[in-house]
């Protein structure tokens, strides 16, 4: 019996590793999320509106749940802007805050973007936060940098400083996050194209553009 024991031990460990790995894969395998019809974003249905770039009646909607301190979100920010720019009349871009707890300044950055939004400069702050992500993420005083960014994009700084700590801004970020959680969003970036989640494995500029290309081709041009 002792002669066969090492074979038995190795066989059992191999079976446990393969079986455990397969079970874990099944549990973690991403199931594409979808946004139910009644919760599709529109300016009219949400109090305070949504952060939307592009025509409200565009046939293709690219909706992102993002975290300003998340590196992959930062890497996709400019390519997404380019997609929206290239398909100006056919694609609308929606951004929702989903700050992750493990990112030290993510929530404050979301507040900064929302505070800028109260002065109609949300997208300018959005772009700047992503562009400068490496700087403020590694700083010891991100708030001072956010104030500087507010000045750079032409905000009324005194008003920005009040707004960034306001309940209105905090509630807005919390509402975005609550909506994401209710849809099943866990990670960032989570991107929906026409209300269907993009496979995280294809979240790169080339494949994202290909997905939007296909979505645009599948829709009739607006009359």
């Amino acid at each position, binding site marked *: 019996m002792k002669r066969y024991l*090492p074979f038995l*031990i*190795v066989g059992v460990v191999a079976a446990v590793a393969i079986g455990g790995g397969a079970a874990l894969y099944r549990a973690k*395998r991403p199931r594409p999320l979808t946004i139910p019809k009644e919760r599709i974003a529109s300016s009219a249905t949400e109090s305070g509106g949504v952060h939307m770039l592009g025509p409200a009646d565009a046939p293709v909607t690219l909706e992102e749940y993002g975290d300003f301190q998340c590196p992959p979100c930062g890497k996709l920010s400019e390519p997404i802007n380019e997609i929206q720019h290239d398909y100006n009349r056919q694609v609308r871009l929606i951004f929702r805050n989903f700050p992750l707890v493990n*990112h030290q300044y993510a929530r404050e950055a979301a507040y900064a973007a929302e505070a800028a939004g109260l002065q109609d400069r949300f997208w300018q702050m959005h772009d700047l936060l992503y562009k400068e992500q490496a700087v403020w993420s590694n700083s010891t005083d991100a708030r001072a940098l956010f104030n500087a960014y507010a000045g750079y994009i032409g905000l009324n700084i005194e008003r920005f400083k009040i707004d960034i700590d306001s309940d209105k801004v905090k509630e807005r970020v919390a509402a975005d996050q609550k909506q994401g959680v209710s849809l099943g969003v866990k*990670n*960032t970036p989570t991107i929906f194209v026409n209300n269907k989640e993009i496979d995280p494995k294809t979240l790169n500029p080339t494949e994202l553009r290909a997905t939007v290309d296909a979505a645009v081709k599948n829709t009739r041009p607006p009359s």
Partner: protein
Amino acid sequence: MIAALISAAGLAEATYLTVISLTGETAVCGGSASCFEVLGSKYAKIFGIPVAGLGAIAYFSAFTCATFAAFGYRRARLLLALTIGAMFLVTLWLLFVQAFLLHAFCRYCLFSAAMIFLLAGIVISQPASD
């Protein structure tokens, strides 16, 4: 026997990392930013195969050799030393990548490196003639 237990722990960790690589979790933010930097980098795959998967195979080989060595198979000791030696060299390369190319450390990778150093220590302290 200790080498077999350490290899089994390494196998469990490498299997976990292989799964999160295959499910695409390393392509998004959800865990630590440093882990994303490392596990989502181009160095985390070789010809499309996750390095963690190759690590799982290596740990399983080490476990197999250590188990047979514990039961007195002489050749298994030599094979274990060769396997751990190869894993040790790869670990040095991966630590170099994290420290000097990515400037980010993944805690899973550091845990794995610690286990391989332990295994190397065991192999060196217990020469084949024992």
